[in-house]
């Protein structure tokens, strides 16, 4: 609801004027609180170490320098190797792209079945699948590690891709199922009578109207997989680590002088892809959040 009923008469009283000023003040203070970490991150990343030591968190950079960014990307030491985070960035890309596409495609097909081609037991199976969303992943880490080891996929990118697909399916399926149930079943009936079969109905009738939900699913999966740390830290090592793990290692490497500007530059680089997604498609992002909020 939008409070237009608190009509103009109210707004003319001094109380109402004070109220509106207070509302704006609180909202703007809150906005500053939410923005400050971002500002600090950006400021710090373009400062020199000397600047950081002499200035403070929100002091404006005296010398604008991209050294920290170059170092974070190319030369910073993570563990024993000193090649920056670029390799790990590309690892994350190599994990995210296939895992997102495959889990989304399978989810779309599953959602289509669970909404439009229900069969005896399909509802039960859907519930079983959904319950899987809620488990704390700690409970599957040990057997998954063992299974990846047996399959020869331990500490590999394909292994991580597999893990992300497997545990993303419940969500992508949920997204598509909830979207497809809003499409009238009569459409499928009409198409069946028109002679179209299972796949033809999917490709000709359902897919052309599914673009919004594809966007939601892709955005949700991209942020989940790109931002994942738990699976990354457990199922990868060294060269195969995703960027979140590398960032954490970089920040917590205790050798040498702590370079806060490099840390911040690396953090921004790690955050850029998902931030870009958020800024470009915020509406869909929120829709995914609320739809996928069962996961938390």
């Amino acid at each position, binding site marked *: 609801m939008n409070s237009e009923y608190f009509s103009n008469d109210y707004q003319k009283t001094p109380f109402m004027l004070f109220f509106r000023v207070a509302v704006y003040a609180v909202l703007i203070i809150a906005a500053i609180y939410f923005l400050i970490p971002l500002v600090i991150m950006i400021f*710090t990343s373009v400062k020199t170490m000397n600047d950081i030591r002499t200035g403070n968190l*929100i002091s404006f950079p005296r010398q604008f320098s991209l050294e920290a960014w170059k170092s974070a990307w190319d030369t910073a030491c993570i563990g024993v190797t000193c090649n920056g985070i670029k390799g790990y960035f590309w690892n994350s890309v190599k994990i995210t792209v296939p895992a997102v596409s495959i889990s989304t495609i399978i989810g779309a097909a599953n959602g289509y079945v669970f909404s439009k*081609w229900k069969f005896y037991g399909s509802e039960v*199976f859907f519930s079983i*699948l959904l319950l899987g969303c809620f488990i704390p992943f700690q409970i599957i880490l*040990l057997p998954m590690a063992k299974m990846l080891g047996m399959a020869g996929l331990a500490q590999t990118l394909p292994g991580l891709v597999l893990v992300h697909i497997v545990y993303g399916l419940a969500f992508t399926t949920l997204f598509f199922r909830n979207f497809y149930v809003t499409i009238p079943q009569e459409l499928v009936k009409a198409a069946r009578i028109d002679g179209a079969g299972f796949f033809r109905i999917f490709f000709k009738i359902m897919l052309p109207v599914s673009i919004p939900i594809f966007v939601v699913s892709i955005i949700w999966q991209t942020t989940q997989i790109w931002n994942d740390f738990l699976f990354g830290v457990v199922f990868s090592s060294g060269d195969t680590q995703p960027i979140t793990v590398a960032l954490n290692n970089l920040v917590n490497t205790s050798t040498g002088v702590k370079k806060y500007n490099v*840390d911040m530059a690396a953090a921004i680089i790690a955050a850029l892809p998902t*931030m870009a997604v958020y800024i470009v498609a915020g509406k869909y992002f929120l829709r995914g959040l609320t739809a996928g909020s069962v996961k938390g």
Partner: protein
Amino acid sequence: MTFQTSENLKTKISYMSDRLLPKLVVAPTFVSTIVFVYSFILWTAWISFTKSRLLPRYKLEGLIQYIKLFTNDRWWVASKNLFVFGSLFIIICIITGLLLAIFLDQKIRIEGALRTIFLYPMALSFIVTGTVWKWILNPSIGIAKLMHDMGFLSFHFDWLVNSDMAIYTVVIAGVWQSSGFVMALFLAGLRGIDDSIIKAAQIDGASLPRIYLKIIIPSLRPVFFSALMILCHIAIKSFDLIVALTGGGPGYSSDVPATFMYSFAFTRGRLGLGAASSMVMFGAVLAILIPYLYSELRSRDNE
């Protein structure tokens, strides 16, 4: 058996294919769910009843790991931390989220921009959030230095390295990341309220604060409930944020069950204990989940 014309056979096939294909399509997901979720849970449960250390052993030994777990000081610290972090995180997020949503709902000109600002932390990885807040809360050159520069020379802030206070830094960062999302949930709830109820209350002469307290906020009950569920879930599973912000330290003073499980199962080679701790986490999630699902199912039945 009769001979079938090819036309007849084709008819039969198309009759069958539409009944078989749906099952074939979901079959891989079915298998993967059974294997990767349910049998894995059983495997972990089994291991939690064994004396597995570095390698899994399958001989059942009873509750030995659970006894070890519940007599382990570090587990109790972790559990207590989860309780402290969880309750503060949930309460503050809900209050902040609700207030921001109510304020944003007052026909604010820059609503779109503000919403974007409140929600963007949700797009970040907890590792990034942890990294930033670790820098901000840095006891020597972070916020303390800023305050000194501003003239507050007596300002002292060392929560990040103080074993009694470290867990509260996690609350600060967690609230920063998640309250925008709670705001979005409440805002959607507010926008869904039937206008006529509020008009009726106005005609009855209720004042604005009274309308909010007596009518609007009570009608957001379902939103409170789902926000609570989601935040509970985030809290129990929180792992990344603690690793990035405090690393569970100083010592193990800011450990939570998720970091406890990771460190025993993967860095200390105590599989059995790790498995037992993850089973307890699972139990906690179920304890929250079952009433939630129950109420969901019940409300669906009522429709």
